[in-house]
């Protein structure tokens, strides 16, 4: 993979982020994802994880706060910020009646990727994710895992510096999950950054350099796994998570 790190600004910086739907969903969130880092955002159901990701990607407008993506203000220069990132929601954003290459053509067109970059990149991604043999099939016949992998290929076609993933491993079998994990590690190794949410704590434990735990829209703990363990007197990430998110 190409080296993606180009400047000193963090990959993502959220400051005082607020979003409410009657009640606060994200409540004064401050969070930073460093370059070349895989950051796992954990939290119980309804903690505000998906809302946070949707705010970062511009799918929701914040009530207050700032969002910086690789030094670009998402709120004032959304197109420039979006050029640098990619979003993969828990439900893959696919078209049932398109074939994988056609889907990648479309996504590459949306990001304005040049043909000489997009074509080899698409081949590389489909090969990597074992989708080449299904390249002539409509995605409506794909399994959940195949759809998720294709959506990931779409997210990576423009070589984003920041990947934003909402539950990327949900519904994947062991082989597909391994492929996706390898791809994410490779992206980070090349200098890219990832922020992901997951309910599979083992994924966060094994992949993430830092972990943030969110509850009721607020970041209640953040750090490496060891730092979190120290804070809660040891145990597995599951123990740490349960201690930190227990209702007071």
């Amino acid at each position, binding site marked *: 993979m190409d080296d993606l790190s180009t400047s000193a600004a963090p990959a993502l910086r959220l400051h005082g982020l607020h979003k409410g739907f009657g009640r606060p969903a994200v409540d004064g969130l401050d969070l930073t994802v460093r370059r070349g880092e895989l950051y796992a955002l954990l939290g119980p159901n309804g903690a505000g994880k998906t809302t946070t990701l949707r705010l970062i990607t511009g799918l929701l407008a914040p009530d207050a706060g700032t969002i910086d993506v690789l030094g670009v203000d998402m709120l004032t220069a959304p197109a420039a910020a979006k050029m640098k990132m990619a979003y993969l929601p828990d439900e893959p954003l696919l078209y049932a009646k398109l074939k994988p290459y056609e889907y990648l*053509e479309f996504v590459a067109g949306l990001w304005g990727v040049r043909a000489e970059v997009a074509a080899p990149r698409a081949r590389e991604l489909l090969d990597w994710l074992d989708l080449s043999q299904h390249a002539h099939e409509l995605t409506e016949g794909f399994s959940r895992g195949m759809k998720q992998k294709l959506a990931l290929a779409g997210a990576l076609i423009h070589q984003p510096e920041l990947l934003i993933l909402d539950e990327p491993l949900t519904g994947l079998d062991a082989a597909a999950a391994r492929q996706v994990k390898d791809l994410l590690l490779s992206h980070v190794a090349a200098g890219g950054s990832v922020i992901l949410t997951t309910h599979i704590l083992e994924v966060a434990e094994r992949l993430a350099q830092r972990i943030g735990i969110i509850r009721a829209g607020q970041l209640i703990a953040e750090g490496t796994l060891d730092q979190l363990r120290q804070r809660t007197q040891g145990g597995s990430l599951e123990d740490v998570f349960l201690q930190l998110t227990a209702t007071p």
Partner: protein
Amino acid sequence: MTSRFAPGPGSAGWLLRHELRLAWYNASSSKSKGGVRRPGFGTIATIALVWLALHVVGWFAMGNLGTMASSDPRVLLVVSAMLIASATFMLSSAIKSSVLTLFERGDLDLLLSSPLPSRSIFTVRLAGVATSTAGIHLFFLAPFAHAALLHGQARWMGVYPALIGIAVLCACGAMLMTLGLVRLIGARRTRVLAQVIGALAGALLVIASQSYSLFADRWQGRGQEILRGMLEHGGMLSADSALWLPARALMGDGGPVLALAALALVAFAITARQTHRFFTVGLQLSASTGATAPAKNASAPRPRFGRSLFHTVVLKEWRLIVRDPHLISQVLLQLLYLVPLCFVVFRDNGVRMPAIGAGLTLLASSLTASLAWIALSAEDAPDLLLVSPASARALRRAKLAAAVMPVLLLVGLPLLWLVARSPLAGLVLCFTASSAVLGAGMIVFWCGRPGVRGNFKARGKGGFLMNMLELLNSLGWGALAWLLADATLARPSGMSALGASAAFVVVMLTLASAWLIGRSRDRAV
């Protein structure tokens, strides 16, 4: 508390009750506050009022018609025609229900994985298809039978066994047809084919009725002579012909009623007994709807990256539409209903240019509105577009172009023919048709609300205002086409000038309203 007479859990009766309860919940298109779909008090009251009103109409109608003799072949002809119409709709409805039962499998996985015998499941599903098929027809026709009963003509109660019998036969035929097609051509194609057949059945009936009324005058002399001969004693359609048995059953003749009921029972029993395995196999095949299809062409696909955003979006929209035969059939159904218009236009060996122009304008406007809704409102992955750096306006413009271009191409050839035939009138019609197309597209562009592609048929329910604007746009440009073409071909009159001015004002006001609505929505966002 369980009723003493309630069917035991797991029995066919218990399953039937479950089916009926689900059907009742699904009988309303609106959602209650609690999120459960079921008809509300208003819906039930409206249905009851309509049913009572039908009884009143039936009272007056059956006062004279109730005494008609079932031995008169002319009466039998009319009743048979009505039955054929009902049976066509029943078959169409039964095919749709069968496909729904087989493919929209909300609970079938659960049922088939339970210890319930698959024969019970199939019997109940078949009964459900037959009930839903018969229900709507009984709703409209039974009040007439009740009214006849009050007039002392009890034999019309034959409507019940006759319609139920025909519905059962249609349900059996439809279910077997659906299952057979699954085996022959696979589940995915069957789904499309069955839906197309269902859609076309209704349309063909409309066309047949229109064709008859249009050609009746030409056929009157010769046709009546042939028919009279057939209806006479000993003719193919005499009173004792077996072809009249369903009609005689409807009119309450004991023998035919029993024969039809027996036939329906036998068909139901055979279908239920012999095909439950077939049903299960069909379901297994239908489950493969989501599986990958075998590769037809092993050659590597040729991706073409690097197109402009406009081309990328247009191509994507066209691919999605072209590869969705069900959607295409629904869109093209509008064309089918306009076929009778062609009969009007070309009748008497004369071509009415203003009528053709108005028809083309209406057609183009209506088609554009449908395609624009599909492309602009029914986007499958709106979040993908929102997270991309592409400008929303550029994307929407490209989608609008994707909707408008095929329609302009479609009406372009007949318009060119009109220009060749009468240049001035043809050019006027080119202007009105193109304007109608652009107007229809812009209305959706400005006022369209997000929708789901699969809900194309129900798109009208979503936005009354947009539908009204689309209708005014179509009618306004259609009227303008007619009046302007007429004015160029004949001497323009004061009335036609006034009419054309009024039509122009209507379309301009319509477009201005659509623009204002869109602008206010943009500001609200």
